[in-house]
């Protein structure tokens, strides 16, 4: 291929136009005649036995069409693979319970469902359902929950879901070789995804009796799990994904789908169910809180000798993706550093808190906060500049992680660090009580799923008689430009303007399966599948045209709806003529490609070894902060993100991901926390759960490195999740730089800053 024409350009996304005009039909915007409104009754106890559920008053209410409890669910409990097809075992599959049965395990767990003629009636019906609870002792702290006498969260199973370890060398030896050792305990909170669009969907039964669910989801392939709930064959449930109003991992698990399927199945009518914001915060998954005990050793000259960590994550009341998230944390726990001796122990533990699952970064940001805070302390202790000590220890291409996975591709951390330091420029001068500080942090985040999940994606590209192009791919577009990137790739290969392309996405009945829009995998997986499919179609066209023109196919190119001779002979043909000629010859004007990630199998789960991920994205964040020493308020003045994105398929989308990710990480650092008090949510809405506003954020500066060495199409890497990873430690390190105190638990609230400063003054006072 010659010079790229469309890839790499900042091209506005086709879906952005529709969104700008208010034409996009999000999940809650869809209606059908005769539809009912669904509502969910949720438990108001974090741990209790259900003694009785009396639905008769609700059923008698005029306008109520169904009231369902656990006994009405054909298969209330199933083991779910979370949309994945390959069975892995090893505790990787979790219990999915549609409605609480004998017990409720967390506050907000679904107990009953209602469908009614109006939303008001449905709400009223919920009030009429009488549930008698007997409160049971609960456990709300994962460390407590690990103790032998702790109450069991789920009957018949230990609270400890999994224990993993990573072992490299001999840490004892490593620490004995160290001149400095720092040891700290870090804590990170529950976090909400806080997508602006609450969970929503609509279900109906089509004229063939297929249960059809149109839903805001990151995973249409939950249709299998939903069919299992209804005891129906998989091909009797169809899921259509909408353009998603933000996902960030929170719409990776089933949200409203099974409820909708049940209600429509029982009533025979279309049903719509949309959560309120409060319901969303109360009931959907959260980012895992972790307790992380870290011990890191280094030589006087800064070389790392050993790292030991113990990670405990709070899984909440159900397993969901907790083992997966923990596994990510395990692989990432030592960071992108060359450390001869490593030992990491990780546990994920059930509690009676809201369940936790995927959240942008998937276990990587948590440990990054710990290992990058440790690196900063080591820098102070060794007297090295924070960037120096990092540069000295960064892994390079060809070296291996503590798990043994060899980094087969470019590791750009030296470049990203240099760029960030450069971009931080002059230090802002302090004024009044404001202290200025700056910090950096680097991180790594995988893109693509764990290789033992045997991930695949498919894409169908076809060209119509008039030269317009259609893509069919079962991807979910969650706002990151997922659909649009596939259009760009196809436009590039087939030499047509992007307007000539129509893409159909996210329909289990009509689009080939492309897997989940999670794990920063879509560009990598479906981008490659689409690239393969488009190339096949191109091949057919070029060969036909070569015959028609009597030119060697090698010298032909597709440009601007024409087949042209690259040699500049002026010979060529309009693309559509070639298409017609192909059609009359009965040549296939389409191709379905299947892209496979590398497949590996796990020998055993307990000890993690070898390749776990296809590849990683590396990057560095730099922050400059102003800390008000008296109030503890932090203002982020500069936030710089530098990433090796391999290749920017769409510069606007890439920058958008990186800017948005940086602010997502800033919220994690400073204000965001779902506060649970004995299992009870104290932050039920956006007036308590605080996202950064436009007046809180700096203009994020993005510096892209394009090594071209990613495993995605055109050498691209994924950035959706990596963009969050190292923000919190960069900010926390900047805070340390400003005021000389380190906060070991997120978020860095004003009150924690003030307290830490006070203890510092006290400690120094005694010296």
């Amino acid at each position, binding site marked *: 291929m010659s010079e790229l024409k469309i890839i790499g350009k900042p091209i506005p996304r086709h879906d952005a136009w529709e969104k700008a005009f208010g034409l996009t039909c999000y999940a809650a915007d869809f209606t059908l005649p005769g539809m009912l409104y669904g509502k969910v009754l949720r438990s108001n106890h974090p741990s209790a036995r259900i003694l009785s559920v009396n639905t008769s008053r609700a059923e008698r209410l005029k306008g109520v069409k169904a009231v369902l409890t656990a006994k009405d669910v054909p298969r209330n409990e199933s083991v779910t693979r979370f949309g994945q097809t390959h069975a892995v075992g090893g505790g990787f599959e979790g219990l999915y319970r549609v409605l609480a049965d004998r017990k409720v395990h967390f506050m907000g767990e679904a107990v009953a469902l209602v469908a009614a003629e109006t939303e008001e009636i449905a709400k009223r019906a919920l009030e009429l359902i009488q549930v008698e609870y007997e409160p049971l002792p609960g456990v709300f702290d994962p460390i407590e929950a690990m103790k032998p006498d702790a109450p069991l969260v789920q009957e018949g199973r230990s609270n400890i879901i999994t224990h993993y370890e990573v072992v490299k060398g001999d840490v004892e030896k490593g620490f004995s070789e160290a001149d400095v050792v720092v040891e700290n305990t870090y804590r990170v909170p529950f976090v909400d995804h806080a997508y602006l669009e609450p969970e929503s969907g609509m279900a109906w039964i089509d004229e063939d009796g297929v249960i059809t669910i149109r839903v805001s989801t990151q995973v249409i392939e939950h249709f299998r799990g939903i069919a299992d709930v209804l005891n129906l064959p998989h091909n009797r449930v169809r899921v259509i994904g909408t353009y998603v109003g933000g996902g960030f991992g929170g719409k990776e698990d089933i949200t409203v789908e099974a409820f909708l399927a049940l209600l429509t199945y029982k009533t025979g009518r279309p049903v719509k169910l949309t959560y309120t914001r409060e319901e969303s915060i109360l009931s959907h998954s959260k980012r895992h809180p972790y307790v992380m005990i870290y011990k890191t050793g280094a030589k006087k000259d800064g070389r790392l000798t050993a790292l030991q960590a113990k990670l405990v994550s709070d899984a909440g009341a159900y397993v969901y993706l907790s083992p997966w998230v923990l596994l990510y944390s395990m692989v990432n726990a030592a960071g992108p550093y060359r450390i001869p001796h490593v030992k990491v122990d990780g546990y994920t533990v059930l509690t009676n808190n809201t369940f936790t699952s995927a959240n942008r970064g998937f276990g990587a940001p948590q440990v990054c906060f710990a290992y990058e805070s440790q690196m900063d302390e080591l820098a102070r202790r060794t007297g090295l500049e924070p960037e120096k000590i990092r540069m000295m220890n960064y892994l390079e291409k060809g070296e291996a992680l503590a798990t043994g996975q060899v980094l087969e591709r470019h590791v750009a951390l030296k470049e990203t660090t240099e760029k960030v330091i450069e971009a931080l420029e002059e230090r802002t001068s302090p004024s009044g009580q404001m202290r200025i500080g700056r910090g950096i942090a680097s991180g790594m985040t995988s893109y693509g799923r764990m290789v033992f999940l045997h991930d695949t994606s498919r894409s169908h590209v076809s060209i119509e008689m008039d030269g317009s192009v259609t893509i069919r791919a079962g991807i979910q577009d969650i706002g990151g430009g997922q659909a649009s990137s596939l259009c760009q790739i196809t436009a590039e290969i087939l030499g047509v303007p992007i307007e000539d392309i129509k893409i159909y996405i996210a329909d289990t009945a009509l689009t080939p399966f492309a897997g989940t829009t999670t794990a920063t995998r879509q560009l990598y997986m479906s981008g490659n599948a689409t690239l393969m499919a488009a190339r096949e179609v191109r091949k057919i066209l070029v060969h036909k045209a070569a015959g028609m023109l009597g030119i060697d196919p090698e010298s032909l190119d597709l440009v601007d709806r024409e087949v042209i001779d690259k040699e500049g002979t002026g010979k060529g043909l309009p693309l559509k003529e070639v298409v017609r000629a192909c059609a009359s010859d009965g040549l296939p004007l389409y191709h379905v490609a299947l892209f496979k990630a590398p497949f590996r199998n796990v020998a055993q789960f307990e000890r993690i070894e070898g390749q776990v991920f296809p590849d990683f994205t590396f990057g560095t964040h730099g922050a400059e902060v102003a800390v008000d020493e008296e109030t503890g308020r932090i203002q982020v003045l500069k936030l710089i993100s530098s990433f090796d994105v391999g290749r920017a398929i769409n510069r606007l989308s890439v920058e958008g991901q990186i800017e948005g990710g940086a602010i997502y990480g800033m919220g994690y650092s400073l204000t965001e926390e779902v506060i649970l008090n004995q299992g009870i949510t104290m932050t039920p809405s956006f007036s308590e759960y605080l996202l950064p*506003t436009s007046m809180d954020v700096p203009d994020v500066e993005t510096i892209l490195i394009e090594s071209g060495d990613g495993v995605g199409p055109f050498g691209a890497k994924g950035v959706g999740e990596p963009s969050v990873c190292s923000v919190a430690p960069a900010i926390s390190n900047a805070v340390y730089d400003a005021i000389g105190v380190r906060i070991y638990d997120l978020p860095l609230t004003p009150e924690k800053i003030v307290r830490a400063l006070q203890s510092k003054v006290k400690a120094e006072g005694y010296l």
Partner: protein
Amino acid sequence: MEYLRPQNLKNALHLMKQWKKKATLIAGGTNVIPDLRARAVRPEVLIDISHLKSLAYIKEDKRKIHIGALTTVSELASSKIIEKWAPLLSHAANQLGNPLVRNRATIAGNLADGSPAADTAVPLLALEAIVVIQGGKEKQVPIHQFFVGPNQTVLKRDEMIKEVIIPKFNPNAKTAYFKLGLRNSMAVSVVSIAVLMEMEKTFCKKARIGYGAVAPKPIRAYRVEEMLENKELTERLLRACCETIGKEISPISDIRASKEYRTEMASVLLKRVMKRVTQ
């Protein structure tokens, strides 16, 4: 639920008298509508006064500013008269809630809601505003007597705020306002403070200090005011004031901040406003 839209103040008062406890008065609705949604209030009748435009005004005469009950927070925030004669209120209005809310929220609604963190109340306390209440007959209540407790005011079921009067202050007086919240927009005050000081060089002739979110209601810091008035402002005196304020307030702990933090910040903010006005 019924909905009534009185055509004038008199009519509105008549309806309030008629429905008493069964009715809820609604102006901008930024407190009432979320309460209705959460079923925190379940009125039988809504009396909507939002369209009574004759109650939306900012006027000045020789000695006073008159602010009609239905004046929106945006109108306060952009008013030249307020900027000149009640800059404290201007600052507070500019930081209340967010721009969308400010276009609906009214001054009377903010006061009548009676939140301990009510942002317009704090500058109005320092400015010694008067709340004009219309019931059977008109009453003028100094704002420091208006609040009774958390979400409680002196307003009776059949009374309404008609306007707020702010006496024009000595043009030489110095003022300052600070709101401490957890973010820069859409933040409920963790602590807020407003001061008005009449100074002759470093001699304080008059001090008025309002605080929000540090007691069951917006308060004046009388003891500190007394310590300052008719005194030479020395470092030592200011330090003593910053200590005293901790004893004068009674904050609570909630998810936003602990009572200890609020107490310390009350003192920090006092120090800051003092610095501002003595500069």
